[in-house]
């Protein structure tokens, strides 16, 4: 009987481990709080690939982390941009907002200039312009 309960406990522990959700993926359709829908996103790198777009002159600056949360019914985003080079980089960025149907949820934002010092990180954050925006893209371009 003792053996039976021990095996049962071990099996239960295994089952619980199997069911445990990976950190950042607790909510279905979201990764690190960011909406991903049906897209295959299983890591932070996947999330960055899905959400970051280069337009115009390409930059070596890339987000290393993207995190989203809800602020009321608006989507709040933090993107950590990393400059791992030994020179100051000048880039421009903007967010593009998408609604549930995949249409633009707001007018195109203006480009925002940004200076990132060498070997440093900078967090850019924003909040969606209205509750119509359910998804986003972070657009980057070089200003060098």
């Amino acid at each position: 009987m003792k053996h039976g309960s021990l095996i049962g406990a071990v099996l239960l522990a295994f089952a619980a481990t199997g069911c445990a959700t990976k950190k950042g993926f607790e909510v279905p359709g979201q990764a690190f709080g960011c909406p991903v829908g049906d897209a295959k996103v299983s890591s932070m790198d996947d999330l960055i690939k899905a959400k970051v777009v280069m337009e115009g002159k390409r930059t070596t600056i890339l987000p290393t982390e993207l995190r989203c949360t809800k602020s009321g019914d608006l989507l709040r985003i933090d993107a950590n941009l990393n400059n791992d080079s030994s020179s100051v980089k000048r880039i421009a960025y903007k967010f593009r907002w998408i609604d549930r149907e995949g249409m633009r949820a707001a007018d195109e934002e203006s480009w925002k200039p940004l200076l990132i010092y060498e070997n440093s990180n900078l967090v850019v954050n924003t909040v969606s312009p209205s509750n119509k925006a359910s998804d986003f893209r972070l657009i980057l371009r070089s200003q060098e």
Partner: protein
Amino acid sequence: MKKLILVALVLAAGCAKDTTRYGDARGIETVTNQFGSTDLQLIAESMTRSMLQAPVIVAGNLPIVTVQEVRNKTSEYIDTRAITDSIRAELQKGGKVRFAVDQAAMNQQVEEIKRQSSEFYAKEQAVEKGQMVGAQYRMEGNITSIVKQVKDVKDVYYKVNLQLWNIRNGLLEWSDEKEIRKTTTKG
């Protein structure tokens, strides 16, 4: 020979054709380091997104706001009305705030009410006096700058501060700042 070159240059200058092209209204403008379209857009967007997170707006009661002056404390001419107009348009699109007629538009509002009260309009459709809704909050602010210049370098720093005041109790419900630095180097 010199005269010939001079004549050729004058002719060439006379023939030079101006070209006009449409540009990106939302692109980064760096023609001079004076207050420009990019600064206006950066300030309007940053302030709007910040204000959307103010507790009085997040509460979802569609607060009524009136827009007051953004005082220009810089040494250059800045149309501060363009800043508040952009913020108002962005907030209005967000659908979280309603705006009451402000001081600048009050004369036109009163004139229209008076016009409708005249004998030219059908009484049943004309707006009645005393039906306007007062604002619960007022938005005001300042824009300041620090300009430093040496021989070949000019540095301009702008700071915009906006505030949302509760008209009934005088409490400051929200405030935020946006800073912009631009440096021009000659040569």
